[in-house]
């Protein structure tokens, strides 16, 4: 799936936003979608339930144009967060080049975050992917909520970031941290793809 193709001069990256239900994955994508010039974004596919929960997945293709002679495309996906959609999550996760784990910073969602992170690790393992070998960044979303409702960046790191990956404070609704997160995962993915393309 992932590719730095020196023959066709293409770079294609698949980035999956993962996390518990209602943590803000789709909001991240919508924010990106709103900021991308018309000509560079594909149609955002979003299948939502009546209550606005992601039913299947969101898909946002981004055409970044020719970069150093390479036609560069990003494909951003979200997974449905609710626990009963695990089959869909596995499907979307297939061939991912990088994962953004969007955690809900609210203290009451602490267990949901942990459960989802565990689920991510399990689903990757079933596909033979070691999470330690895959570019992953964490986004602690909803940091705009009142202080007494949420865990701080440090506390979230203590709880979730035991692999010391890059982590970002976020407020996806207003855009804070959205592009920083995307930039962070993109850089990791691109570096890995280019290195892998030659090391193979």
């Amino acid at each position, binding site marked *: 799936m992932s590719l730095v193709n*020196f023959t066709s001069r293409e770079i294609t990256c698949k980035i999956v936003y993962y996390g518990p239900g209602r943590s803000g994955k789709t909001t991240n994508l919508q924010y990106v979608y709103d*900021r991308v010039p018309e000509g560079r974004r594909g149609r955002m596919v979003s299948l939502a339930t009546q209550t606005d929960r992601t039913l299947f997945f969101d898909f946002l293709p981004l055409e970044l144009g020719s970069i150093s002679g390479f036609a560069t495309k990003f494909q951003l996906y979200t997974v449905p967060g609710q626990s009963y959609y695990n089959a869909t999550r596995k499907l979307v996760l297939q061939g991912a080049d990088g994962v953004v784990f969007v955690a809900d910073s609210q203290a009451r969602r602490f267990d949901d975050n942990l459960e989802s992170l565990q689920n991510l690790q399990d689903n990757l393992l079933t596909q033979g992917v070691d999470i330690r070998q895959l570019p992953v960044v964490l986004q602690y979303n909803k940091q705009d909520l009142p202080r007494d409702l949420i865990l701080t960046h440090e506390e979230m790191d203590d709880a979730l970031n035991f692999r010391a990956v890059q982590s970002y*404070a976020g407020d996806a609704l207003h855009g804070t941290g959205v592009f*920083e997160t995307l930039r962070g995962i993109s850089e990791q993915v691109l570096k890995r793809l280019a290195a892998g393309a030659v090391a193979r």
Partner: protein
Amino acid sequence: MTVTLNPLYRFDTYVVGSANRLAVTAAKAVAESPGTVYNPLFIYARPGLGKTHLLMGVGHAARAIDPNLHVEYLTLDEFVEAFHAAIAAGHGEAYRKRFLDVDLLLVDDVQFLTHRREMQAELLRLTDALQTTNRQIVLTSDRPPAEIEALDERLIRRFAGGLIIDVAAPDYETRVAILRRKAEERRASFADGVLEAVAGLPIDNVRELLGALNRLVAHQAVSERPLDADQARMLIGGAMGQRDDKTEERRQEPSGQTQAPASPSHGPAVPSSGAPAPDEFSDFLSEIHATVAQQVDAWRSQIGAAVMRWEGEGYRTGRLQKLLEHDAVPDVVRELDDFERDVQRLRDMETQTAELAADLVGSPAFRDPGDLAAAESLLARAREGAVPPAAPSPLWRLADWIEGPSAKVAVEASRAVVQEPGARYNPLVIVGPGGAGKTHLLHGLGNAIAERCGVPVACLSAPEYSGELIAAIDRDAVGIWRSRYRRVSAFLLDDVHLIADTDRTQDELFLLYNVLLESGRQMIFTSAAPLAQLPGLEPRLRTRLDAGLVVELPAPDREVREAVAGRELAAKAGEPDSDLVEFFATRPVDSIRVLLSQVHRVLNAAEARQCPPGVALAREVLDGVPVPAPEPAPAAQPRRPAAHRVSGVVAPTAGGARSREKMVWEWPDITDRAIEDWR
């Protein structure tokens, strides 16, 4: 020359300002006369100020002046890695030697020598060696030698012995010049004052300056209107502010993780930005541009690393180096895979060749993956050489050879040789006139030895041996030809007297003799003349032939003639007439071949007349005694000179024996020598 030099990093693309003028002047002086002015030249500067550009500029300029100059560029890491790879592959000395042959050595990033004792020693040794032979070494580092932690004092002194010079941050004018030149290279144009505004910002690192230019290019590409100076200042200045913030955060956070600013204890942890900046995507795009450019341009260093690796292992890398000369990004994976596959093919071919012809191992043809055809050709030649030489004719068996009392010594010696090849009489030289049965005996012995010791046993005549050598010289395949004979279990050469005056054949025979004797393999030679009577035979070869056992095989005596005639008559006409056998046995014939010829003439005459062969008919046919109806006898063969002639018989093939007396009657003393002299 190692073409890992970036073609863009030349002096003429290097913007010179007051901060780097001295360093550039020194670098140019070194490029113009390597090894004579500042040796070593040590350039240090903070990251992003053009050290690598300057270093490669020296390489390009030096090569422009003298294209034959051997220039090597490498980073210290590559130097270390390639050295370790070479040591692991057992090519340590070759690797060291490779650097000693370099006229201009450019080493980047030597600050990584920190705590690398063994590489410091290696570099010290190399620096000394290069200086001794007036070869130039130029090094760069991000700090002066004295500040490189745990650097050997001797290295510091060596560097100080040349010239240590720094490149400072560019001033405003230089920054403007850099921005203008880079914008021009990218064919990007900006409104007046934009580049000057950016140059006015506190950016003192050329790499960051280029990053700022990237940002300008990306923004302008997605903006409807060209940027003005204020926008540019805000765009770059804002980004710098963000980066400064991040830098500050990193300072506070030793783990290096990007963190949000410290939040107030109440209220939102991250203040909502409300209206987000409209160019977030452009910023993102600009960053991705830089990352992708950095990553895909990495192909150069990856190919460069492969060049280092394969050169370290002794392979030519011209094919990879050619890729670096082009701007187009190659399919790096495929190119490197192809190269590795071809190297593997070369290794396989070399292994196969080693089994066939050990002297071809190590040939340069097995070191150039860019020219597999040469290696294939060499392997084909080795295969050709693996074909065993001519074997003794299976039709001449030792059991059929008729021995007479006068050949007793030769017979006993032959039996001893068959019993213990290579141990008793080595070489065995059988001397006798033509027609005495030498060739038959030789081939018979060859067959017997082959049965005992196994094949291959080489058995051929001297002119054939000489002819093969000439053909091998013609194909430039003497080594292969030679190896064919060095693999035989026994070497039997008929008519060795015919190599007299053939210098090269004698040389080869001499060499082969030594190899075979040393390894205890049997050699048997026949000669129509005693060795002492061969003035054209080199003493070193004659003495060696004499060193074994020289036996004489005289002309067939009466018993032999009787046995041969009886056998031939019985084979053709049943029970032979005893008078006729006696007739042939008493005739003064000195050659079995002549005897056979006479027997056959009588048998043919009897067949023509449809009468049994008898003495009267024989007298009539052979001696011309008048008879009532004489058959016209064929003219007798003219007698040849007894000595210095070819045996006149070639080994019978499936078609049986074939006389070649007429064919070779005139040439043996002239033609083959003439050919060889001409060669």
